[in-house]
């Protein structure tokens, strides 16, 4: 392994600009003549708009334009779309209501977009927005996930019972039969709490219109600028693709929330032409809470059947998923194909049946958030496994070992064909790291100090890459989920790689360059990674689903293969040898059995000067592109163990130690991969202990700032012990499985399993805040007293 090649902990190339304050985020972009947009949002969860009077506001100082849904409709600007079609059990398509970028006659959640004011300054835009008179007729609101279906209030006429779809997966008859034969059935009711992604950079957009060329440019906080361009062009109708450039510069975290195409960027780019000025909008934090797509929000009943020996026979799940007031871009895929196919976990479960009812409510749209469906599935499976082990009187580690899948490939009853894995190896390593043998003594020590100590396991699996395209297409995806790359070699041998992946914290500028440096044998500083601009990168699908390594880097790998193949042809001419006799290794083209060689940089120069070959026989230049479509999903898996201590007097939970052992396949940069694991665990711990988006019964979001919504801070978390096992992924050339979501998927059940172990009962929901834990601990104490 070279110091900068695959497997090396190379320090990040992108860091210099970030640590010196030179990063360039969307809000840092300022265009000449730029105006500011401010969105007037609905204060009501559900209301008819009888009228909007903008006359007084339009006369306020600095106002350049005020627009409503009627203006968008007049310009034939289409509504926002949901790009994944789900079919009901009876085969009929899901019932999707219209989703205008600015409200047309009705608002459906607090924060819904009523009008936009464009003014010289933000203060002027805000002042003018206050002068807009909207006559609302309030309607009753539907807020609770479990009560939405069939509620009297109908949110969209298209979905008369507030149900978007009733969907199912698996074999109901086989599952029912297995349950009848079971000796033990574990039943659990679970709520997967609603979360707000809260990337530290709020969403922002700058729309610009070049009247001379007729070209729109949109700078936006996007994880996938090409998908944004596709949707804005083909569905919303801003402009044809060749007249619309989308740039996602440095993006300050996404976690899913910046995949989607929102109202604000749509309106900003459209309004730039209307007012003839660039238009900027940046969310403040409360706007982000109100209008970013939220995550999770499932209500689930699940049952697990085992035989007399504890062998799992079947799993049955019913979930109600809240999709909010409108269908966000990929919302329908999250509680369906990103959820139920993961319900087999790491276990050999012969029969599984899952039903999902997706509902509309008068709350912000819900869509993919780090893990997207897979954390929800893992929470169901790992809570059931832990509780079943307890009810059967089995050690939770041994119960898992007993039921792990051991032969690969393994076809689950819910679509997925797992390719590789060694779940027992991860468990063994995690047990060593956490010192499982010593847990009894540590529990006694805690008890002596008046504390309750618990240990909780989570054996998670995820499906990453979200491809092959043909597979996701057959499941309802509106797009193909391949990735593209172009490797441009310059005449002196430096390289630019254009990728359709997008980095918003993942360190692609480093890891992708490591791959190129490794394969072409050139210094890493000679490699630049270019992403996030539709004028530079021809097409790409962006970054989510832990797909940039497995899919994005595989595309680069394929393009490099082509560069090397072309280089061999050039070298054959220069070295006057047969092409079949040319080898390439360590940055040199050599002729087999001779000492003749041509280094990569000289080969590039020869390719461009084209003096040594006939341009009719071999094209000059050295630039190759590739599209890569995987042959399967990838299946990262691992074991996380959380050990914690509860103070029953205060309800405060202190995580004492954390062991994480993950199998991500081949790792390009262990430093970056471990960082991804740390961050994922922190988000999962946040879900388990601290975070919860709460609407009151009127549909007001009462957790709409960092003062009301508890973000994990440094003193809420421990340091983490991270280990790895490796089974290379067979479905891509690099053997990568993906690592971005693992921590967030694994950690919530590990925490709750540890808390319930400490408490001695299962009666606690997420977030297990000090108040909730204190109440639950009092129940433990009174039970102990009764015994």
């Amino acid at each position, binding site marked *: 392994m070279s110091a900068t090649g695959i497997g090396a902990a190379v320090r990040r190339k992108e860091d210099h600009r970030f640590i010196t304050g030179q990063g360039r985020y969307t809000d840092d972009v300022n265009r000449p003549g730029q105006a500011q947009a401010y969105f007037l949002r609905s204060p009501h969860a559900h209301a008819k708009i009888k009228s909007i009077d903008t006359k007084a506001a339009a006369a306020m100082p600095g106002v350049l334009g005020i627009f409503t849904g009627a203006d968008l409709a007049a310009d034939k600007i289409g509504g926002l779309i949901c790009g994944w079609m789900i079919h009901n059990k009876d085969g009929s398509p899901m019932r999707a209501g219209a989703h205008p970028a600015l409200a047309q006659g009705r608002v459906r959640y607090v924060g819904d977009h009523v009008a936009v004011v464009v003014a010289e300054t933000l203060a002027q835009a805000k002042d003018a927005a206050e002068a807009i008179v909207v006559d609302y007729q309030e309607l009753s609101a539907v807020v609770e996930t479990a009560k939405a279906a069939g509620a009297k209030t109908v949110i969209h006429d298209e979905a008369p019972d507030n149900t978007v779809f009733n969907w199912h997966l698996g074999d109901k008859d086989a599952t029912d039969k297995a349950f009848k034969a079971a000796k033990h059935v574990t039943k659990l009711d679970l709520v997967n709490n609603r979360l707000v992604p809260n990337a*530290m950079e709020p969403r922002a957009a700058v729309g610009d219109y070049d009247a001379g060329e007729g070209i729109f440019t949109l700078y936006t906080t996007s994880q996938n600028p090409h998908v944004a361009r596709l949707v804005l062009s083909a569905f919303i109708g801003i402009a044809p693709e060749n007249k619309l450039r989308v740039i996602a510069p440095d993006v300050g975290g996404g976690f899913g929330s910046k995949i989607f195409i929102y109202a604000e960027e749509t309106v900003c780019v459209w309004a730039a032409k209307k007012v003839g000025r660039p238009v900027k909008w940046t969310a403040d934090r409360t706007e982000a809470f109100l209008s970013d797509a939220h995550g999770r929000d499932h209500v689930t009943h699940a049952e697990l059947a085992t035989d007399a020996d504890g062998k799992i026979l079947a799993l049955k799940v019913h979930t109600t998923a809240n999709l909010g007031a409108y269908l966000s871009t990929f919302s329908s895929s999250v509680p369906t194909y990103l959820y139920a196919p993961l319900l087999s976990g790491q276990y050999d479960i012969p029969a599984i049946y899952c039903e999902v009812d997706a509902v509309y409510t008068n709350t912000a749209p819900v869509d993919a958030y780090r893990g997207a469906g897979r954390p929800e599935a893992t929470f169901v499976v790992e809570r059931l496994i832990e509780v079943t082990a307890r009810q059967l009187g089995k050690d939770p580690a041994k119960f898992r070992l007993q039921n792990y899948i051991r032969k690969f490939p393994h076809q689950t009853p819910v679509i997925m064909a797992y390719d590789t894995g060694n779940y027992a190896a991860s468990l063994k390593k995690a047990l060593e790291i956490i010192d499982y043998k010593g847990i009894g003594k540590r529990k006694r020590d805690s008890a002596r100090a008046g504390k309750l100590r618990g240990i909780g396991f989570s054996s998670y699996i995820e499906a990453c890459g979200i491809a092959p395209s043909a597979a996701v297409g057959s499941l309802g995806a509106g797009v193909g989920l391949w990735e593209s790359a172009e490797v441009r070699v310059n005449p002196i041998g430096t390289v630019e790689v254009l990728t359709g992946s997008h980095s918003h914290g993942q360190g692609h500028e480093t890891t992708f360059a490591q791959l190129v440096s490794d394969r072409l044998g050139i210094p890493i500083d000679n490699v630049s990674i270019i992403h996030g601009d539709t004028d530079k990168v021809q097409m790409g699908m962006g970054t989510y689903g832990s797909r940039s390594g497995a899919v994005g880097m595989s595309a680069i790998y394929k393009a490099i293969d082509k560069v090397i193949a072309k280089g061999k042809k050039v070298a054959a001419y220069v070295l006057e040898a047969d092409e079949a006799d040319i080898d390439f290794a360590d940055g040199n083209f050599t002729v087999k059995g001779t000492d003749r060689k041509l280094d990569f940089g000289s080969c590039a120069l020869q390719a461009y000067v084209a003096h040594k070959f006939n341009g009719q026989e071999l094209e000059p230049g050295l630039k190759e592109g590739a599209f890569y479509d995987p042959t399967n999903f990838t299946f990262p898996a691992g074991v996380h163990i959380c050990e914690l201590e509860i103070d029953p007097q205060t309800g405060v939970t202190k995580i004492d130690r954390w062991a994480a052992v993950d199998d991500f396949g081949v790792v390009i940069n262990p430093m970056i991969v471990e960082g991804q694991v*740390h961050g994922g665990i922190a988000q999962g711990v946040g879900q388990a202990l601290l975070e919860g988006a709460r609407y009151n019964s009127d549909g007001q979001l009462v957790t709409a700032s960092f003062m009301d919504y508890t973000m994990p801070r*440094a003193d809420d*978390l421990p340091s983490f012990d991270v280990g790895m096992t490796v089974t290379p992924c067979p479905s891509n050339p690099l053997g990568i499985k993906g690592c971005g979501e693992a921590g967030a998927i694994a950690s919530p059940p590990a925490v709750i399993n540890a808390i319930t172990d400490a408490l001695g009962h299962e009666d606690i929901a997420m977030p297990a805040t000090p108040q909730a834990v204190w109440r639950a601990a009092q129940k433990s104490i009174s039970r102990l007293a009764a015994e």
Partner: protein
Amino acid sequence: MTTVSLTVNGKAVSANIDPRTLLVQFLRENLRLTGTHVGCDTSQCGACLVHIDGKAVKACTTLAVSVDGAAITTIEGLAQDGKLHPMQEAFREHHGLQCGFCTPGMIMSAVDMVNRRGHELDEKTIREDLDGNICRCTGYHNIVKAIAAGAEAMGKAGVTTRQAAE
């Protein structure tokens, strides 16, 4: 409009501003020093943290006119003569950042922590003192390591924080 005069990263600046202009707006919009970020507008996340007369202050809830005459240091003013401050180096070396958005505030907060608490910082102290800065990417693990290492490096290099920062 009101006139405000400040020293920012060692340079005297003076401007005529709307009295309601926040310090972070003044830095970002008037001076185009966009390294100082706005993450929450309520003093919770610390992305906007700068040093005012050597002390850490959140610029998103500070009126520019209220610091008239003060010396401000932002992330852009931390490196001296093209040489990174030891705390900046430590964040890179220990992978203390991912998306980079909270990073300027984190680094300015860390330097202030060393100012107040010295060069030997244990994990507990760092975690408790970092309560005013939120990061969504790193889980804080590597930020804590970076701050401990940066504090030590500042001691070894004989960089007093005020020399480096002001």
